[in-house]
């Protein structure tokens, strides 16, 4: 029965896959069959059958491990000795982690702002033009690509060859520098700008999301509002500032906060492009390093908890803003 847990050939892999799906269908089917009696089964049994599997999985696989992680974060490297908040003080005050925290802050501030700004501008620019569909698709497509793939795409753009006669640059960005007469740069190695070049990748991915949501919001602005504003003499900057932006404000808040939360958890880009070297480390990747490379259980748990705690203010801001906009309505 070894192939059940360590399928090695393609045939075995698909066999295990179909077995898993069949097993799942049988179990779920059995549960539903048992409660499928309109009158006799009490309502709470039916509710348990429908919502039970999901709640059970979430409790076992998300809530419980999260609580264990919080618990572990107060213990030492091996999880034997209780050390209070030492892991947290080490992360928050230790010099080693200072650049990790700073970099994470830069990511969480710049990525949402840049993606939303570009997405908004682009959505306004292509709105109702002849090429709208194509234009949107071009910016939209990076969303389908994995962050690993996107990182490789951009690593190739940043590729550096030493500046010697007879050596051609193969990275587009360095070639552009050479064309305008500047020396080629090691974009991913030279700190502190290298963090910005990593951020570009995330912005490249997230702009499509911002554009899609904001474009839908712009299209939903009622014509009569725009019309009335025009009659009042609003044009250009003022129209954008006083009509477009306030009307789509809820969408803007959602886009900004969604991207911010997503950015906080990103580790693929840093891991693939620099491996966290050259002062580019962020919390999410440092967590992975501490958990699975350094095997420092307490510290990695503390980093995971910090990641979670950092999400909370963003969510609160989101909820508050949405409440406010609902009140106005």
């Amino acid at each position, binding site marked *: 029965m070894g192939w059940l*847990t*360590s*399928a090695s050939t*393609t045939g075995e892999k698909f066999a295990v*896959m179909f077995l898993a799906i069949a097993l*799942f269908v049988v179990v779920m089917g059995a549960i*539903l069959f048992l*409660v*499928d009696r*309109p009158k006799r089964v009490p*309502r709470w049994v*039916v*509710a348990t059958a*429908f*919502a039970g599997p*999901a709640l059970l*999985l979430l409790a076992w*696989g*998300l809530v419980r*491990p999260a609580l264990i*992680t*919080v618990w572990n974060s107060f213990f030492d490297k091996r999880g034997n000795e209780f050390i209070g908040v030492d892991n947290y003080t080490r992360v928050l005050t230790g010099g080693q982690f200072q650049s990790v925290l700073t970099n994470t802050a830069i990511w969480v501030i710049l990525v949402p702002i*840049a993606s939303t700004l570009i997405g908004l*501008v682009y959505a306004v*620019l292509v*709105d*109702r033009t*002849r090429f709208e569909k194509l*234009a949107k*698709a071009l910016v939209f*497509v990076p969303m*389908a*690509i*994995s962050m*690993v*793939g996107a990182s*490789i*795409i*951009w*690593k*190739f753009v940043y590729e550096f060859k030493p500046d010697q006669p007879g050596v051609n640059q*193969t*990275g*587009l960005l360095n070639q552009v*520098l050479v064309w305008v007469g500047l020396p080629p740069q090691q974009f991913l190695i030279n700190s502190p700008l290298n963090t910005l070049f990593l951020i570009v990748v995330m912005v490249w991915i997230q702009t499509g*999301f911002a554009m899609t*949501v904001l474009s*839908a919001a712009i299209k939903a602005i009622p014509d009569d509002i725009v019309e009335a504003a*025009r009659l009042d003499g609003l044009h250009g*900057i003022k129209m954008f500032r006083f009509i*477009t932006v306030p009307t789509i404000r809820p969408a803007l808040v*959602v*886009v900004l906060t969604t991207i911010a939360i997503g950015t906080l958890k990103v*580790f693929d880009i840093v891991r*693939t492009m620099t491996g966290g070297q050259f002062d580019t480390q962020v919390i999410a990747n440092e967590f992975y390093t501490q958990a699975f490379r350094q095997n420092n*259980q307490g510290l990695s748990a503390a980093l995971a*908890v910090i990641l*979670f705690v950092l*999400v*909370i203010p963003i969510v609160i801001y989101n909820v508050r803003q949405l409440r406010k906009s609902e009140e106005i309505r």
Partner: protein
Amino acid sequence: MTTTPLPPTGAVPQAVEEVAEPQAPGRRRLSRLEKRAIATKGKLSSPWASALAIIIAILWTLPSVGLLVTSFRPELDIRRSGWWTVFAGLFNGESEFTLDNYDQALYGSGANLSTYFVNSFVITIPAVVIPITIALLASYAFAWIDFRGRNILFVAVFALQVVPLQVALVPLLRDYVNLGVEGSFWTVWLSHSIFGLPLAIFLLHNFMKDIPSSLVEAARVDGAGHVKIFFQVLLPLLVPAIAAFGIFQFLWVWNDLLVGLTFANTGSRPLTVAVAEMAGSRGGDWHVLTAGAFISMIVPLVVFIALQRYFVRGLLAGSVKG
């Protein structure tokens, strides 16, 4: 900073101004079509707006084009010159193209991505089917079965959406090791299913709530139980919602690195992990790396482009309503 396409902020109002301009003061009542025509005309006649839009579009496309072109060039050419030189080479016949890189990436002893391609499929299909099914049932319960604690539980599930996976990884991995199933597909499926549930329940619940309650009431009057109502009344109406979340989850699982890296072993790891590994160990071998990157991207790209409509709908339902 040349790649950061931060457009000057002044350009936005300018673009809007161009739209507003053709509005003659005397003509108040315009049909939507006319307005649209005016807007279109206004947009295209403003060179700054068009230029900016084109610049953004190019910046968003060029990096991918570069990688795609490179993946078809011979190894030596990739080392010697930039991919943009092939366009000049097309005219004098100096550009060469080859499928060798793909052959090497898929079957070469160092890369062998064909194995991991299979793994990605084996991981993704159950990891999409299972959470959708479980979430459909749960969202039905939250929407149409009146039980105690329903609202609190739903808010709890909703809140779980923002919990970073990182907090769950280490304890889960320890459980899998204790059960003796670590590294198998089972752990990857289970983990992906659990992590996908909060968003799935939230999204499907949003769609499920939009279905008129009179339909459900009518079925109830006819004596149908919850199971029958779920399968015969709601499920057919939910196909677009299922498609929307299905694409979400598919892209998420196929493109995921964290879960694959943590739970899969060398025998079960997905493409993303293999390609990321390649980028680390053979970072200079752009011929295999470019081909490998595109092998990992082709399936999500096809799915995404084919089912874009549903994806956008899911995106809007998930973000704007939330």
